[in-house]
């Protein structure tokens, strides 16, 4: 049996189930408890688990990220919520210099089994300091794992896997997906990290996307279908580890590739995917790999300019037409 639930409910179920099975797991962050979560992801969890395990913090990202890391180092399994990943910038030192490096610089003596999670990337007209897609910064760092689900089912399964993982895992949730509904199987357990999902079969082009951009890619694919172009959509789900095999298998089939993400164009996940595809499947390619990204500027407040900056289905359609040589150059 399956239920149709929202993305935020799926995340909540995952946390509740893992907290019920393991007393070492706790949730900490700004307004996760009494306020019931800034985005209501943790709604009701304080009543269920009490103040010992659902912990409101002051506005001190570096401080409570570090608290989580220290606690993880000696055997607890914290879930640290950033009210948005934008604010994780002030905790970057903790994540980069402590969480990611602890195991290596201690010669393998200490692990850091922690989850950092929260909304990522753009919302609606919240200005440049609240619209960052932060995943690129973290996905470059060895020692971290980074996931970015697009559907409630993946959100639940990946969150459960993240909590059980013995390494630091970052769960990047798109703020715009929290109210999106989807089928979640009653018996869904862990979805392993590092496995992409082919969410749409096609034969003319592979569109690689993740998080909210998977939905944009699906909209683009529907439009392309009307024009006789068959697009396959690969939802990465996990950015580190990256499921190279699923991407390459798809490109071997379609011979063309477009990567869509909300981060800026300089470097990043799109560049990483493009590099791997050209290096490992060069002979399969019939066209250059294109990237559809947020424009190379801080996010503007103005609604029309904001929409211009964030990848929309029409930009994905245009990129696909270029790689199948069916549009304007």
């Amino acid at each position, binding site marked *: 049996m399956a239920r149709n639930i929202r993305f935020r409910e799926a995340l909540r179920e995952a946390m509740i189930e893992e907290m019920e099975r393991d007393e070492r797991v*706790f949730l900490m962050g700004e307004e996760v408890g009494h306020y019931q979560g800034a985005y209501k992801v943790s709604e009701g969890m304080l009543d269920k688990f009490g103040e*010992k395990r659902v912990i409101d*913090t*002051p506005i*001190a990202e*570096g*401080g*409570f*990220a*570090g*608290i*989580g*890391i*220290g*606690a*993880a*180092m*000696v*055997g*607890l399994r914290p879930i640290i919520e950033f009210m948005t990943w934008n604010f994780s910038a*002030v905790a970057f*030192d*903790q994540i980069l*210099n*402590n969480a990611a490096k*602890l*195991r*290596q*610089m*201690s*010669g*393998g*003596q*200490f*692990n850091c*089994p922690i989850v950092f999670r929260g909304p990522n990337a753009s919302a609606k007209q919240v200005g440049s300091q609240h619209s960052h897609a932060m995943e690129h910064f973290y996905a470059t760092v*060895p*020692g971290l*794992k980074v996931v970015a689900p697009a559907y409630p089912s993946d959100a639940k399964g990946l969150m459960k896997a993240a909590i059980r*993982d*013995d*390494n630091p895992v970052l769960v990047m949730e798109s703020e715009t997906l929290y109210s999106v509904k989807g089928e979640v199987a009653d018996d869904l357990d862990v979805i392993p*990290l*590092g496995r992409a999902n082919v969410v749409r079969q096609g034969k003319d082009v592979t569109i690689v996307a993740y998080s909210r951009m998977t939905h944009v890619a699906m909209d683009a694919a529907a439009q392309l279908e009307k024009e006789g172009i068959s697009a396959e959509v690969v939802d990465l789900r996990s950015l*580190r*580890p*990256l499921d190279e095999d699923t991407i390459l298998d798809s490109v071997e089939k379609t011979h063309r590739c477009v990567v869509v993400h909300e981060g800026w164009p300089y470097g990043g996940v799109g560049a990483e995917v493009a590099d791997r595809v050209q290096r490992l499947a060069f002979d399969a390619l019939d066209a250059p790999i294109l990237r559809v990204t947020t424009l190379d500027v801080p996010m503007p407040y103005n609604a029309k300019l904001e929409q211009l900056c964030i990848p929309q289905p029409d930009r994905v359609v245009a990129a696909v037409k270029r790689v199948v040589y069916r549009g304007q150059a």
Partner: protein
Amino acid sequence: MAIETNSHITHRDPSATENGPSNGLHSELDHLVSMYRQMYLIRRIEEESARAYAQGKIGGFLHLYIGQEAVGVGAMAALKPEDYVVTTYRDHGIALAKGMSPNALMAELWGKKTGCSQGLGGSMHMFDEPTHMLGGYGIVGGHIPLAAGVAFASKYRGDGRVTLCFFGEGAVSIAGFHEGVSLAALWKLPIVFICENNEYSMGTPLSRTMSVEDVTTKAIGYGMASDRFFADDVQEVERRIRQAVDRARETSLPTLVEVRTYRFRGHSMSDPAKYRTAAELEDRKKKDPVIRARAKLLSDGYPESKVTALEQEVEDEVTAAVKFADESPDPDPSILEATTYDGPFAS
């Protein structure tokens, strides 16, 4: 090795085997012998480290603790073995005082596989899980919230352990200090924050880094207990830190302690310390805590011949540690991926 350099020293008589029968009774003199031995070991290990650095056997940075030995040794004497310690990049003395073996420490400085962190951490990252030495950290103040997190875990589990967190006065200006100390006070965590105020943040004197030189005035703003004293006398350090450790263990309340101390060397081996005068250094060396402890031993009636014998033992131990480090193999490249993730490598 006749005495283990560790934090057990307040709970058993470590000198019984070499100083004749003690009938298992704790003796204040024996305890001072033990603390002197640790201080002398730290001093000699670091002098040999400086020599090895000059010979090119040790790479990177090397921040010596020489002059500050009474702080680490006195503080650790107030702990139980299961208590945790987190510190900065000036970590050799702290690690030895917590119980790390000189061999593992020297081999780590040499970058060898037999080092405490398999040669991957080096001077600034001394980790030793068995003795609950939770590391030296290289970002000033970045380890303070982490240390509070270790104490948070103790409170969460109710395991009764205390965490000591060491840092220099330079760390007081960075956000990590404020956030870590503030949360520890808010959540009443069993931790003692020990500011080793050696009067210089790298090469900049205290008068040019802080508007208020008394670090413990910060404690008022957090509603936290504090203490402040000079750290030339290892017994005094132990007595004062023990009060803070007891407060943490018995009432789960943190304390901010400022100990005034002085480093005889520069910030690191690359620092000739030209920002201070020779006269200042000579004046401070008159308060050398190692020499002071030795003099106290003799004045308390401990025979000089035994002191000399103890010092010779330490010499032998240091020589053996250097030999061990020299002869140990480099780590195999295969450990790189295995130590980056627990489980399969994720790229």
